[in-house]
């Protein structure tokens, strides 16, 4: 009996030993030569990129177009990267990059082909001036002439500390309205989006959906998962957008997490705030400037056989109406504004900031705030 058990046990062990690597998948581990790297790049995107169907891209045809060059024409890594750059341009996606030690492939037509609509020197010299304050990556102050508050947030990579944000909003309290300038903010950490947006939220509000791939097929996606904004935790300083309007400034270079932030804020527009007397008023949250650059696909990364990292859009995000914002979000009606170079150079005026200020002054329900004293450290202009 014992011997039989021993024999059975050894047979079982040998069987497992033989077949224990069957579940491993080395089919995508291609060679690290130029052709193998090209194939791995194409294959990674074929299985994990999320916008083929939405963008009507025939990825198989693109493979067939570029394969001959990968086989016969590429002679060094510079040419390989150029070939990959040309192939990836068909995706028209700022979130698709291959990182070589000497260069990075990129698609920038989503902002290169459009007016810049932002001049950092103009804002710094004639709006922020020297008296602005800065916290958590935000530069902020108040325009003395019309008491409109202004926050410049240049990157969602800058972590927003809740206590820092309390101080920022408390310092700007008493203004007629608030401008949040996220022009040329290329994105960053998605977790900073609700951290900032929740300060304008008074009730649970649906603002987006997110899904992910469930398989290698171009249309293998999970059911969209709703994303909600909820009010900041008790004790945190919030901004009453039903009384003091908020205008977000954006341009074509407002991308990725910034696009998501604009989407979240616009979802709050029109939602009701109840005041201390029980009266309800709609929030006034608008976007002024140019259409955003889009980039609503959360990017993932992988590694090609030659060690080059590759980044690609993997998880598509939709707005609250389940529409894609991959190609951007339009400004609020009546607030599509392009900067005029003459105004910039001769009058030192930023047309987009000026349009936002006019909107705030026309719509604020605050008791009209008098211009602040020159001694007020929050005054940044005039």
């Amino acid at each position, binding site marked *: 009996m014992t011997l039989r058990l021993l024999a059975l046990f050894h047979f079982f*062990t040998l069987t497992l030993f033989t077949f*224990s690597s069957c579940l491993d998948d080395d089919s995508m581990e291609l060679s690290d030569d130029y052709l193998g790297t090209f194939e791995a790049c194409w294959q990674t995107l074929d299985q994990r990129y999320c916008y083929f169907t939405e963008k009507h891209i025939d990825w198989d045809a693109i493979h067939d177009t570029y394969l001959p060059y990968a086989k016969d024409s590429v002679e060094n890594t510079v040419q390989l990267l150029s070939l990959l750059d040309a192939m990836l341009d068909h995706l028209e996606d700022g979130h698709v990059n291959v990182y070589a030690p000497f260069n990075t492939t990129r698609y920038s037509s989503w902002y290169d082909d459009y007016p810049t609509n932002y001049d950092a020197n103009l804002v710094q010299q004639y709006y922020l001036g020297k008296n602005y304050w800065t916290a958590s990556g935000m530069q902020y102050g108040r325009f003395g002439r019309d008491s409109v508050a202004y926050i410049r947030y240049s990157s969602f990579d800058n972590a927003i500390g809740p206590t820092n944000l309390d101080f920022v909003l408390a310092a700007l309290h008493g203004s007629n309205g608030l401008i949040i300038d996220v022009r040329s903010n290329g994105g960053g950490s998605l977790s900073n989006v609700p951290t900032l947006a929740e300060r304008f939220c008074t009730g649970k509000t649906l603002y987006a959906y*997110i899904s*992910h791939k469930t398989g290698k097929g171009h249309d293998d996606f999970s059911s969209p*998962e709703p994303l909600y904004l909820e009010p900041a935790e008790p004790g945190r300083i919030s901004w009453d957008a039903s009384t003091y309007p908020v205008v977000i400034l954006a341009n074509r270079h407002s991308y990725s997490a910034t696009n998501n932030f604009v989407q979240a804020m616009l979802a709050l527009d029109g939602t009701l705030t109840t005041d201390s007397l029980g009266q309800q008023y709609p929030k006034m949250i608008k976007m002024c400037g140019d259409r955003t650059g889009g980039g609503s696909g959360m990017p993932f990364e992988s590694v090609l056989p*030659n060690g080059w990292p590759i980044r690609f859009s993997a*998880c598509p995000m939709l707005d609250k109406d389940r529409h894609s914002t991959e190609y951007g979000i339009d400004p609020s009606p009546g607030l599509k504004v392009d900067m005029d170079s003459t105004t910039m150079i001769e009058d030192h005026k930023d047309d987009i900031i000026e349009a936002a200020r006019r909107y705030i002054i026309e719509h604020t329900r605050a008791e009209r705030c008098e211009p602040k004293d020159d001694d007020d450290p929050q005054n940044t202009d005039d």
Partner: protein
Amino acid sequence: MKFLSFIIIALLPALAHAQFRPIASSVELHLGTASVRNTYLAPLLYEGQDLSIGYERARDWRTAPWSSLQTLVGQFTMGEDKGAHSESWSGRLRYRYAAHYNCVLAFNDDIKFGVGPYAGTEVGFDYNLKMASGNNPATARLVANAGFSALTTYKYSMRDHHGVLNLLVQAPLLGYALMPEYGASYYESFLLSNTSNQHHFTSLHNLQDLDVRLTTDFNLSRNSAAGALRLGVGYHIETMAINGIHTRFSSIEAIMGWTFRSIPYSNISKTVRACEIIE
């Protein structure tokens, strides 16, 4: 008191094994090579060095001929892809409890064969250094399973020094694994609490695991109470295919450690109480 101490010391060798169920514990250091692949991160196989620390504890049950064997292993690997272009780190912490039904071969009572079930759990991570600045640089691992465990021991002696040769083989048959969906992000899992289709039943169709260890405990002195030097080799391979994600973790290691026997304090207390009655 002196007389009591004398009784305890005199009784211990005679009673240690049969009546007081001594514990055989081993502390081990493993060094070797490992191969890791996790297609959630990248499709490449990363091969490199492996360092592990292990603890093993064996004890007979009160109900003969059953015995238990517990193993706890903490493993860390650092590997590169085959072109040495990128680096990956992995960590595993594995605990198993096996119960063996033991029998001795009729023609040679130096060979003991134990077989029975085991239950265990494993947690770990895989981290790709090339993807450190992205949204998916690492992935976590959680597995719990039950399976088949067999331990063959052979007692031998060399020039008045005694030793034991151990062959341990373990393989899971069914269990549970936590695995994200093919393209799901940890942002969605943790911040949005969307964990749909992440909890999976595992069996041989989607998880294959084999753990083989051949060790010898060799008494360096004639006094077995002094402990024994443990030397050996270990081989572990585990592959998994769930949600279109394929993982592989395999290692070959040299094992070095020390095995010592101890008697639980509760058993010593029983001796003391027995002696009091005698007095």
